């Protein structure tokens, strides 16, 4: 599973947080695949960045997680969620 600190963009140059969101909510690949209408292997390809979803599929995934699409997919690497929530660690805390 690609870590959020070093997410794999794969061949299509698109970063995503699907694996992180699934882990947070305890959702299996099969559950997500059934909900968005693809085979579960495709979810694996998406998470690894080896496949770029169509617009329809990207929106389906966003609707499933009830998040805006830019919270799940990005052309730039995502900052770690911990940094986004708590900010960058201060110098004296390192």
């Amino acid at each position, binding site marked *: 599973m690609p870590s959020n600190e070093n997410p794999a963009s794969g061949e299509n140059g698109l970063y995503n947080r699907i694996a992180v969101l699934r882990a947070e909510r305890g959702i299996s690949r099969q559950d997500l695949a059934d909900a968005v209408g693809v085979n579960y292997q*495709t979810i694996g390809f998406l998470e690894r960045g080896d496949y770029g*979803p169509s617009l329809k599929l990207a929106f389906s995934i966003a609707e499933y997680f009830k998040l805006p699409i830019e919270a799940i997919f990005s052309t730039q690497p995502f900052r770690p969620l911990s940094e986004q929530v708590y900010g960058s660690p201060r110098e004296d805390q390192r």
Partner: protein
Amino acid sequence: MIVESYRFFGLHVRRRRTRRAIMVVYWLFIALVCFGFARHEIHHGAEEFGSMAAFVLLLNIGNVLGGVRAGGMIKPYSDVHWPPASPAPGDEGELTLFGSGRRTGASRRGVLDEREKNERNGVHFLAYTLARWFALLLFGIYAAFGWAHVAWFSQIGPLMVFLLTLVLWSLPQSIILWSEPDVEEVL
């Protein structure tokens, strides 16, 4: 696109290493058949046995490799199944042109999703590119043999047609089976 539950003589096709071994054996077998066919044709002339063997082999390709029809290692390329599948309860289905198949919309099993359709299309483009160069090579060999007035020139034509048909029928599936990663790698 691999049908994970498929077993080839008891071997799981989930692992790429297994599928690659199957492909090597498959194409070696094809080469052996072609060599035997060529020798038989050259020494005895084209006879029914060779043609029947070739015909049976062609019919079986789709059923083992899959793709062109249901039941093989690869999911069918389209959601039109031939031979026609029995419709699931509540699924009226839809007869296609000339009654060649029935769309089974209710069941997702075996239906390609968008990634698999992209993969199918890309593989067929690659296979077409390779096949056209192969066809050019065959034509070059045929022309060279004809120019050299080789004694058995007239008998290699059927073999070349057979080879080209084999390539067109099974090359896309071979590429998929060779390159698709292990299911465990993807998960």
